């Protein structure tokens, strides 16, 4: 009677909870109903013994932790062969982690969630790393001994290709920056003559850096990295061959298009020749203008003046260049 009433109450309880137990549960309940009266209200652990509602197996007692059986010279790579969460019973260290509550000490390792949350490197001890590397060594190859410096690499392998790879956790494995390819090459390592070099620099515009003499081509228009690499090499090839060509309209290159300053056929030359001619004409009579010109240009003072003006225009105004120009002008005008 009591068992049946208990069963009905238990059933009603479970029904309100939304569970549906069945015959097995009923038999258990009938058994537990007889147990509940014999048990004391408190067991040794300090938890009150509640009547068991539902299929519960008696809890097994855990044995001694593994750490007590560990020797000092054991093989740790056998305890943690791969990445595993922190097991307090398997790690023989007296580790504590946590905020010291009530001016106490950090919590012990047993049941410590903070220790379990943080990624541990117990599987990557130096001994384990050495073992792994010994196994991986046969798959590695040696770097050629003759390429021992950056200069040697630059000399024999002038083209540099940069690309990126990414490893991260997320909803997608893809990273759009993976397909970008950057090609860097020094123009001095390519077979270019003067005209080809100037034309190449004009063709690439911003992609050429004058200080380091490096051409940088960045390709990211294709969806795959291999395609972008092929496109970059194609661009380099085309630039190279196009710069060797001389088009018909290149003959119309004006003074404004020139990269460097040339003193020949410039206003400075004309002015100098006029000045010197007038200085001469005061002393001598009429002469053949062509011969006079050649003679004037051949003078060392004029040559020096030419050097100073070219240097001033190409390198910019520094104290050195200005002084050189001053000296040249003084010598030219006999001042």
């Amino acid at each position: 009677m009591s068992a049946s009433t208990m069963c009905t109450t238990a059933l009603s309880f479970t029904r309100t909870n939304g569970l549906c137990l069945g015959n097995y549960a009923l038999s258990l309940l009938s058994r537990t109903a007889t147990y509940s009266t014999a048990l004391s209200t408190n067991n040794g652990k300090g938890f009150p013994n509640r009547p068991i509602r539902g299929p519960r197996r008696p809890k097994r007692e855990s044995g001694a932790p593994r750490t007590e059986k560990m020797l000092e010279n054991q093989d740790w790579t056998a305890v943690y062969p791969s990445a595993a969460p922190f097991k307090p019973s398997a790690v023989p260290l007296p580790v504590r982690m946590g905020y010291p509550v009530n001016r106490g000490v950090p919590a012990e390792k047993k049941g410590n969630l903070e220790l379990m949350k943080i990624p541990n490197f117990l599987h990557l001890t130096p001994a384990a790393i050495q073992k792994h590397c010994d196994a991986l060594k046969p798959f590695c190859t040696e770097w050629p001994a003759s390429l021992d410096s950056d200069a040697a690499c630059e000399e024999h392998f002038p083209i540099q290709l940069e690309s990126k790879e990414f490893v991260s956790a997320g909803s997608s494995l893809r990273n759009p920056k993976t397909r970008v390819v950057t090609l860097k090459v020094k123009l001095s390592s390519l077979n270019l003559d003067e005209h080809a070099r100037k034309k190449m620099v004009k063709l690439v515009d911003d992609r050429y850096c004058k200080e380091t003499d490096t051409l940088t081509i960045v390709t990211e228009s294709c969806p795959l990295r291999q395609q972008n690499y092929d496109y970059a090499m194609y661009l380099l090839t085309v630039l190279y061959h196009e710069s060797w060509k001389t088009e018909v309209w290149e003959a119309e290159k004006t003074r404004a298009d020139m990269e460097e300053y040339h003193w020949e056929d410039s206003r400075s030359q004309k002015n100098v020749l006029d000045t010197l001619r007038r200085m001469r004409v005061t002393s001598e009579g009429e002469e053949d203008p062509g011969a006079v010109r050649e003679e004037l240009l051949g003078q060392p003072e004029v040559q020096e003046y030419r050097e100073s003006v070219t240097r001033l225009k190409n390198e910019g105004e520094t104290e050195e260049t200005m002084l050189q120009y001053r000296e040249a002008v003084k010598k030219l005008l006999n001042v």
Partner: protein
Amino acid sequence: MAAPIVIVRNVGAVARTVFRTSRALHKVDICGTYDRQAISSQSWRLQTPATFHTASVFRSAPAITVIDEPDTLYQKVEVLVKGHDKTVLDSYEFFATLAAKELGIGLGKVYEPPKHIEKLTVLKSVHIFKKHRVQYEMRTHYRCIELSRVTGSTVQVYLEYIQRNLPEGVAMEVTKTAIEKVPEHIQKPMWDDAPKEEQASQSGEK
């Protein structure tokens, strides 16, 4: 035992990729004594984390064969790891540098770029109370390991090893700088050999 398990894992991964040597300009490949079907079933088994049966999977150690293909050369490989916890990155740096030394890879700079803090300010309450807000910040710590002058095979091995042991919550960015010779078609201008060829139309230079 730990070591055989590790060999099995790595070779299983390696069987899917191709290795090269530069010594005699040859490629190194893995060729075991098992057939292709066995590879696919074994590689599936190797991917499940907790079931390692070492002796039963491989009958003998896989042999390394050399293939004719020149190895790529990398002047610099930069490995940048990012994470929210500095101590985890410290441990990872120790692991990566030790692994590089063991594999005989020359290390360049190993340094710590300054951390980046992203802050945001949100309203504390669901409705009104504009004057009361709460601020959160996300700190990203970085660590950069530069390898100098490595071959393609070695880089593949090292990166695979490093990436497989990347801890949770850490991301990695690898920048590789490969070096190459000037290709044959750029050695000399083609106009010397074929002057009669029609000059090609403008290509996509810009």
